[in-house]
């Protein structure tokens, strides 16, 4: 073996690597869209991943959603009481939960649970050559591992977000009922009076983006993991950090866009 002179950089090593990273992420995403619509389709693996991502996240989503509903109601009550407007609680809570909290809380939970899980799983498959083993057996690992996981998270996160919203409203109802003995139907009637189709639609669209981002980032980081077990840990960690960061950016952009739509 001989050693060549070291490589020349266009800007600097850090900046070059940053742009190469962005290019490779776009290539990865492009490959997803090419492979997702090309047969063969792995429906069984897709269902399996929906189960892993969706059903196994239910307990955590239920607990977090319920507590969010209770806490948010409890914290909002004193301010509204000052103005004698506690009857507005159901509408206030419903707007907050269905427009923002449900999808955001679900996305953050999934970024932590699902994103790190996918990053670690694919990362460990990469460093133990399981992905290479698929490739040499004429199995397309990208299609089998990445496409199914990204699709599964894109499908399940919106469903989980709607479920989280419902559970959070139940939490809110339980708190209001403890103080004012409101009926279940009047709570929901009051709550949904102020909710429009656009609110639900925006929330679902937002969750679709969140789900896609979480799946894509987890898969990208895991699929390109290197450097042994340290690399697996790094992939899982980066998957969580980057997907949370992107989720917040998407939240801001989509809220802005939906506000423009409301205005016009």
């Amino acid at each position, binding site marked *: 073996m001989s050693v*060549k002179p070291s490589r020349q950089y266009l800007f600097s090593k850090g900046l070059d690597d940053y742009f190469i990273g962005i290019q490779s992420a776009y290539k990865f995403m492009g490959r997803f869209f090419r492979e997702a619509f090309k047969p063969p389709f792995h429906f069984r693996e897709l269902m399996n991943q929906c189960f892993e991502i969706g059903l196994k996240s239910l307990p955590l989503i239920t607990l977090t959603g319920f507590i969010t509903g209770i806490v948010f109601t409890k914290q909002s009550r004193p301010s509204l009481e000052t103005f004698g407007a506690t009857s507005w609680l159901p509408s206030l809570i419903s707007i907050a939960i269905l427009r923002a909290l449900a999808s955001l809380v679900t996305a953050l939970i999934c970024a932590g649970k699902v994103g790190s899980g996918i990053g670690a799983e694919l990362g460990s498959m990469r460093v133990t050559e399981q992905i290479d*083993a698929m490739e*040499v057996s004429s199995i397309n690992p990208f299609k089998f591992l990445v496409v199914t996981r990204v699709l599964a998270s894109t499908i399940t996160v919106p469903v989980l977000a709607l479920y989280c919203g419902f559970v959070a409203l139940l939490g809110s109802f339980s708190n209001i009922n403890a103080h004012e003995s409101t009926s279940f139907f009047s709570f929901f009637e009051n709550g949904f009076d102020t909710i429009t189709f656009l609110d639900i639609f925006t929330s679902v669209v937002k969750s679709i983006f969140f789900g896609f981002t979480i799946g894509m980032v987890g898969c990208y980081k895991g699929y390109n993991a290197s450097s042994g077990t340290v690399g697996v840990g790094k992939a899982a960690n980066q998957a969580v950090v980057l997907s949370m960061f992107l989720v917040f950016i998407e939240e801001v952009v989509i809220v802005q866009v939906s506000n423009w739509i409301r205005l016009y």
Partner: protein
Amino acid sequence: MNTTQEKDIIDKDDVVISIRNLYKSFGALDVLTGIDLDVHRGENVAVLGRSGTGKSVLIKILVGLLKPDAGDVVVLGKHVPRLSGTELDALRLKIGFSFQNSALYDSMNVRQNLEFPLRMNFKHLTKKEIDDSVDEVLDAVGLKDKINQMPSDLSGGQKKRIGIARTLILKPEIMLYDEPTSGLDPITCIEINELINDVQKKYKTSSIIITHDLTCAKATGNRVAMLLDGKFLKVGTFSEVFDYPEERIQSFFNYNFIQ
């Protein structure tokens, strides 16, 4: 294996792997610097060399996992670097690759590991046909009783055997073994060497065995290729390579004997 048996198995007129002037580097590091090798049908070639000399890189290029920087690789008449994705997939069905760490899918049990390549590549197969294939390869590697175990419950040697069985299930014409005896005790090493020779006889495969284990190279290789400093310094029978008066080869053998 004696010479008569070798003559029965090896067809010296039929070259199944042809490597010409192969170069590969990673960044500033040149790993392969002009490799030439022919492997004949039915022949086992052991590639010997120190760790980090590019032995595994060589077989990863053969199966299209890595692209060479220059040179040509012809496997079963196909120029590997020039193949499209579909053509490469078709060729890969004829090549079995046994990984250094077995690379068993740890979310699947032994049966599922063996069924997976069959189910994904031959969707028309019936359950009975798949079960028969699984039984046959498990029988070939002598681990029929492990069919429902998870990879984490297997020993290192058993994992290697299941890894080999998973490649055999596709009935390959060529086998590529990456360090088949690394990390195993001497008795298990002997068993794996015997398994490699059994596979050669039973499945009529041509193989490249990547190893730094002299016993493995001697026991399994009809020929041995000595890879040092990015080039094959000598290709021949084990004794031809062993007796070759080249300082680097002699120091490799001396070091291994001391070890």
